[in-house]
């Protein structure tokens, strides 16, 4: 396990400070044809003795980090201050995407903090509700609630997309009330959709955890509270909630971790047009720009972000383990 996870991570760190490009040479090709002989100057990749294209790798330090963070933009505009590109890798810097990582991080954090309260509240409300209904209804509600959670994220996001698509079901209903909106066409509505998807997807998890927690609320404490004259609100507030407090912490921590990795809805619902998330950014740089080195830089920054988020979780586990849990 260490080999398969730690090694790639180390390689990612290593790659992020390097850059490789095919080694090119300038050749003069003489073409002879019945219509005369002409010489064409062209570039071609240098082949090694084994017939493969040789590539030049070099240490570039933090160059890609600056690029991903958008700190490089000033240097590019200044022009000559940027070091000449020895490797010959053609790197076009697009100014409008310059602060890619910060934008991705901002949306990821927005997503995280916008979904968390809804997930906790809705999950808890559902758990309370299902806990009130008769035994024979419960399995039905639980099964159906599991569906959004268990579904393949790509498929779930696609299903939501089709629902909100032009001529789809939801825009049709809204148009009945005089609201016409192209959901994927604007930044704010596309973001809202991603957040809605996030809530839809994670509420079942919170629900199941809280529901299980409700089963273990000590009945005698509840009864004691009832005898002491507490009404149902007071019982909820003073007996049930304190009992469930650790679960709230648990769900929040897990959700923070998962929300940080939001990827599929971003890809499906906006295709990165209006908004990106940190995972999407790495994927995009790797698959579209085909640049594992730059992608590594984005990945390393992602790791730094999760490290900050992880501190509370690690501290908690640490304490638990020390207690011997």
């Amino acid at each position: 396990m260490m080999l398969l996870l730690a090694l790639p991570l180390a390689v990612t760190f290593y790659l992020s400070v390097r850059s490789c490009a095919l080694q090119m040479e300038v050749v003069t090709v003489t073409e002879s044809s019945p219509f005369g002989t002409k010489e064409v100057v062209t570039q071609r990749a240098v082949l090694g003795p084994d017939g493969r294209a040789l590539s030049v790798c070099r240490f570039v330090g933090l160059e890609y980090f600056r690029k991903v963070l958008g700190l490089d933009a000033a240097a590019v505009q200044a022009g000559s201050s940027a070091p000449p590109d020895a490797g010959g890798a053609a790197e076009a810097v697009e100014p409008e995407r310059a602060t890619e990582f910060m934008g991705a991080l901002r949306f990821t954090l927005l997503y995280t903090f916008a979904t968390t309260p809804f997930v906790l509240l809705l999950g808890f409300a559902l758990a309370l509700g299902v806990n009130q209904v008769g035994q024979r209804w419960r399995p039905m509600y639980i099964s159906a609630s599991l569906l959004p959670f268990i579904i393949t994220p790509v498929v779930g996001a696609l299903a939501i997309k089709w629902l909100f698509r032009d001529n789809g079901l939801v825009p049709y209903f809204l148009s009945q009330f005089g609201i016409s909106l192209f959901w994927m066409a604007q930044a704010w509505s596309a973001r809202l959709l991603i957040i809605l998807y996030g809530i839809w997807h994670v509420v079942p998890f919170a629900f199941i955890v809280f529901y299980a927690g409700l089963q273990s609320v000590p009945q005698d404490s509840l009864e004691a509270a009832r005898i002491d004259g507490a009404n149902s609100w007071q019982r909820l507030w003073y007996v049930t909630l304190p009992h469930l407090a650790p679960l709230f912490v648990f769900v929040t921590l897990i959700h923070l971790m998962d929300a940080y990795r939001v990827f599929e809805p971003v890809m499906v619902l906006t295709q990165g047009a209006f908004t990106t998330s940190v995972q999407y950014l790495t994927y995009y740089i790797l698959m579209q720009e085909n640049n594992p080195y730059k992608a590594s830089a984005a990945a390393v920054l992602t790791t730094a972000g999760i490290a900050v988020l992880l501190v509370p979780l690690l501290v908690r586990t640490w304490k638990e383990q020390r207690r011997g849990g």
Partner: protein
Amino acid sequence: MRQPARVWSLLLHLVLLGWLLLACLPIVWAAVISLRQYVDAFSVPVKWLAPVTFENYSRLWIDKGFYRNFLNTVIVTVGTVSVSLTVGCLAGYALSRYRGAVGFWLLLTALVFRSLPHSTLLPSFYVMFDALGIRNEFFTLILVLVAINQPFTIWMLRSFFVNIPQELDEAALVDGCSRFQAFRRVIIPVMWPGVVTTGLFSFLLAYNDFLLSSSLVNAERMTMPAAIANAISADSEAFLMQGVAGAVSITIPLIILVVLFQRQIVSGLTQGAVKG
């Protein structure tokens, strides 16, 4: 006293049914429109009833060869689940019985890796496997999925193993079992529900994965979710409808799973260190 209670319960059911509708609507609607022609699926005003056709499914599964993606999924998930359960059982058992500092650090490391976004590993997988020439192999994809599942599997299995009293091992040892026999003959049978639950979650992780399955293998070896990605930006109408049919096809096994294993999934979710 009787009347308000009944009204209250009715209201509660209404609210819960509302949630049920919200939870299932996207999938149900996708299932409904997957049986239609494009013009009926996205029309203004919305058509509640439309001619039923299986054309989308037959195009997708037969003409487009979606059955190949289905077989790929079977290979990848079966491989991932069996390898990760084998390794996870051994590791989880060891970690639950071993009371040293190393075990603690291993668990902590596993936790860190579990929370790591998968994309952080992707570039190096990409470059390493290219260099070794083993990208685009089922074997590689399974290996990666196992590696990514493993921290999760180990944590979950460990928390099941911890609940099995140590006296059981000792009894087996006293009766003349070797350590391995005790594990194989005594512990695993007791553990079976835990193993099933963990296997279920490890199946879900492998089945639902998109990021790795779509980037580490080429089209002919892609799993179903990766293959369906074409539908994301599909502008052509027939293509879009096949995407809908594909999405529904991916979901059907999951629905069967929920119905069959609801109890195990719930117990897994509440097990503590859960959810990938």
